[in-house]
């Protein structure tokens, strides 16, 4: 294990305070007879320095839970606390401020602005936070270099590969140094090599920058990078596994196999 990772692990041990805490989250979608209970009382906590995978079949409530944890959707009942702030009763604009200050998003289909270059796509994340000018531009370039796109700063999304686009999206998510990064199926649209590259990047962000990263996925290729796997089915958390201390990501090939072995 690298020194940085050891330091991060040590830090986690010293301060296990969750940066995000969801308690008894219930979400009903639709109205009247067509009401569907998408989440039926979910409890989840995100710890700094951890890459958590939220896995489950289609329709299990993964994306709904991600939307609620990201303060994009409000729960029907239950309590959500983000960076010490309870979200209950906050207005849409107050929730937007909470997202802006503490949460970075990565989307399945990247959601980049096709008319903006890679650099501009990242800059816009700082611009909405009121950070402009040379310092902001320099910071964006730095983050794009960190994700390996230093040579693609002026390229538009249409001229980037899927993996490169997702790395731009990752850069956009982390440029404002949020304590939480939420990723929705970050590897779904990528081939094996690019998917691995993005997962390595997310793991690095969690471990080296001490952020909480939660990735919703059904892609088994992502398992080796997880510190924790949370399984959701039919709106309920049905299981949770944690990587044993001391194991480095690439050395674990599949947590599922490990679980089967234990069983």
């Amino acid at each position, binding site marked *: 294990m690298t020194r940085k990772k050891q330091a991060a692990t040590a830090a986690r041990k010293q301060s296990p305070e969750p940066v995000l805490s969801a308690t008894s989250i219930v979400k009903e979608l639709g109205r009247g007879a067509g009401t569907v209970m998408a989440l039926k009382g979910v409890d989840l906590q995100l710890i700094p320095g951890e890459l958590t995978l939220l896995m489950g079949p289609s329709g299990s409530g993964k*994306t709904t839970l*991600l*939307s609620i944890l*990201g303060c*994009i*959707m409000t729960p029907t009942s239950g309590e959500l606390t983000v960076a010490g702030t309870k979200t209950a009763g906050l207005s*849409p*604009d107050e929730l*937007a*401020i*909470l*997202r*802006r*200050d503490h*949460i970075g*998003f990565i*989307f*399945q*289909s990247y*959601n980049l*602005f*096709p*008319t*903006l270059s890679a650099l*501009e796509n990242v*800059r*816009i*994340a700082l*611009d*909405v*936070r009121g950070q*402009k000018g040379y310092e902001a531009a320099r910071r964006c370039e730095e983050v794009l270099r960190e994700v390996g796109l230093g040579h693609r700063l002026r390229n538009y999304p249409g001229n980037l590969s899927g993996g490169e686009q997702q790395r731009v999206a990752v850069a*956009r998510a982390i440029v404002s140094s949020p304590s939480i990064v939420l990723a*929705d199926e970050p590897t779904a649209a990528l081939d094996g090599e690019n998917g691995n590259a993005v997962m390595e990047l997310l793991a690095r962000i969690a471990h080296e920058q001490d952020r909480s990263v939660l990735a919703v996925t059904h892609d088994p290729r992502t398992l080796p990078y997880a510190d924790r796997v949370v399984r959701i089915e039919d709106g309920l958390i049905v299981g949770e596994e944690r990587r044993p201390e001391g194991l480095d990501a690439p050395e674990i090939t599949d947590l599922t196999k490990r679980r089967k072995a234990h069983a």
Partner: protein
Amino acid sequence: MIFTLAFRNLFHDRIRLAVTLVGILFSIVLVAVQLGLYLGASRMITANIDHADADLWVMPFGAKSFEDGGLLMGSRERHQALATPGVEQVTPIVVRFSEWRKPAGGSTRVVVVGSDAEEGAVKPLSLKNGTWEDIKAPDAIAVDETYLKDLGVDKIGDTAQIGPGRVKIGALTSGVRSFTQSPYVYMPLSRARALVGAEGSDLATFHLVKVFADQDVEQVRANLLSRLEGAEVLTKQEFRDRSLRQWLFRTGAGVALIGGALLGILVGTVIVAQTLYSSTKDHINEFATLRALGSSSGYIHKVILTQAGLSAVIGYVLGMVLALLIVVASQSTPLPIVMTPQLAAGLFTVTVLMCAISAVSAIVKVTKIDPATVFSR
């Protein structure tokens, strides 16, 4: 980044941008032409009043406009006016519609304007060929060069007939158009009286009153009104307004011009609103992403308003270029279009407001964005 995003969104779809700009351009040209015609018509209607050296106008009760003064007044009114305290000078003028008979046959209506210019009355404006002295020669008159063809004459020295008397073109004016399309024919007062059937009399359509510089015009007007029972006394501004009301509003011409301008604004607003709305709809996922990234709704509104503002500026520039070409081309027509710096500034304000109002539908659309849609793409 707001400007960059708005600019790129706008130029991303060139066809939609072209439709937007054509909408604004059409709107600006229509409004510029309609209001330019309105201004041009206003100037034509009031040109003689504006150029007369008078503080007050004495006229028969019920006079409608400069051209339609009604009954002729006698010298009694003039003498009473001259005897009024504060009055420096009273100059009679005759203005009447009359029949112009063309040398080659046929006739047309003209407005005879008879005055003694050396006394400070109405002068023929913008004399291009000839002088006031030339007009004082026997039978001589001045007409505008634009109407030579309509009057059946070609040049200075040509003759025609007004009522019972022969007239000869002694001078030409330039750019003195008549809103009624009946050309003004300028001549000395006595000649005009003779042509309208008041030869040898002291009759006049209007008496132009000049007030001593140290006198209060309103007070002098009150004095005049108390003495002149059968006449009205109007200030220059009041007479201008009355003439404008008569020709632009009682005839419906002005209403049609203003209505056309409003229609232009309406059509432009609808076109810009439609294209802005569809642009916003096309970029709705990007706006939802911005919302998910934590942008305030104000940030997104600024992007849309900047888009609208950019459309307004580009559309205005293109529209004004075309409008100015039309203005230049209209100068040789009987109804020239006028463009003033105030009208140009007003048009810019209208364009910006039009685009801002157009942005409302797009703003309403983004206000309803559910940021959760970012997960359903």
